[in-house]
Structures are given as structure tokens and as C-alpha cells.
């Protein structure tokens, strides 16, 4: 079965510092991986995805993610954090075994300190 894990409930980082939000995955076959961000009382917004190709994927708002097949990881990164990046971040994998489901991690709360 497809699954993703986000090992950190919360990540704190100082404004201007680089940030990393971790995600590991377990899939059968090729992974289709996604990152989303959620602000309070709002729906999820798509940030980026890995389907195939370059291991470094660039997305919205200056975010990027690095796909690492040997470590089965898909960590979200940003070179310089902003206070406005404070939100809840979700990693997700698409089930490719006939159901089209998106399976989400438990979420990581990012807090950027001024």
C-alpha cells in the first residue's frame, strides 16, 4: 500500500534561514509525490509535485523539493524562510493501483520566527 510519513509535528526556523520539512514515502512502483500548504481555516494549496525527471523540483512561492529514491524521501525546502510561510504543510502520494486516491501525511506545522 502507498503511504507517506512526516516525522515532525512542528518545525521552527528563524526568518531568513533555510527551512526543510521532511517526508518519506513507501510505494509500489513509481511514486507520484506532492506537497501542499494549508493556512488556517482554508483549503489546501498545491505547491509542487514529482512525477519523473529531475530530482530537484521547483514550485510556488520559492519552494522546492528534493526527490531521493535511495532514501525514499521527498523533503520540502526553501533557501530563505519568511514569516508568511508559517502554515501547515502536507506531503501526499497518489495511489496508482487503480483507485486514484491521494494519501496524505499527518502534516507538519512550520513556524517562522521573526
Amino acid at each position, binding site marked *: 500500500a502507498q503511504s507517506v510519513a512526516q516525522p515532525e509535528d512542528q518545525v521552527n526556523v528563524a526568518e531568513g534561514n533555510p527551512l526543510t520539512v521532511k517526508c518519506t514515502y513507501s510505494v509500489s512502483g513509481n511514486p507520484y509525490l*506532492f506537497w501542499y500548504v494549508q493556512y488556517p481555516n482554508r483549503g*489546501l494549496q498545491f505547491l509542487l509535485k514529482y*512525477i519523473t525527471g529531475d530530482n530537484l523540483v521547483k514550485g510556488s512561492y520559492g519552494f522546492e523539493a528534493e526527490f531521493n529514491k535511495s532514501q525514499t524521501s521527498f523533503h520540502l525546502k526553501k533557501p530563505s524562510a519568511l514569516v508568511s510561510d508559517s502554515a501547515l504543510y502536507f506531503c*501526499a502520494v497518489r495511489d496508482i493501483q487503480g483507485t486514484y*486516491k*491521494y494519501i496524505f501525511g499527518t502534516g507538519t506545522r512550520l513556524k517562522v520566527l521573526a
Partner: protein
Amino acid sequence: SQTIHQWPATLVQPVGSPLSLECTVEGTSNPNLYWYRQAAGRGLQLLFYSVGIGQISSEVPQNLSASRPQDRQFILSSKKLLLSDSGFYLCAWSRQSYGTEAFFGQGTRLTVV
């Protein structure tokens, strides 16, 4: 461009009352449709998904049901709400291709009192 509409934004309902949440998608055809519930601002629980009209898959046995009467309309219902049905309900759509992302509505905050 495609848009997803979900309403209402907030809802307070008494225990035992019925529920109907509606979600519609514009600008695409034959989308996959999803209902998720988020409790306490954390993880997402997939409740139902649909790959076509009248085709509903249920993920978790519960007090809720879903219907897809039209291609771009997805409805979440309950005949009698329980306190445990409180939460943040999110509708989403995606294209059929595996490599595409899902797009979410703005959510409905349901409080059962």
C-alpha cells in the same frame, strides 16, 4: 480555467439533524472527486471518492454518505448528525491522469452541537 466551489463555509447543526454539503467543479469534465475530513487542524481523512457519475467509493464506515448526481457535483450527506461529525470538510477534484495534482475547495467548518 477550473474552479471548485464548496458551501457553506461554516455550519452549526444540532445533533440528530440532517446534513447536506455541496461541491461543484467548473471548467473541466469527468473529474475525480473527493471528500476529506480534517479534525483538529491536522491530518486529512479520506471519506469518499468518485471516478464518475453514480460511482462512489467509501473509505470509512460512518454516519455519512456521498452522491454524485451530475458529472461535476459531489454531495456529502447525513440523515442524523452526531457530535463526532464535527470537523473541517474539504472537497477536492483532480484529473484522471495519475500525475496530476488535486485542487481543493475552501472547506466547510461543521460544528455539531
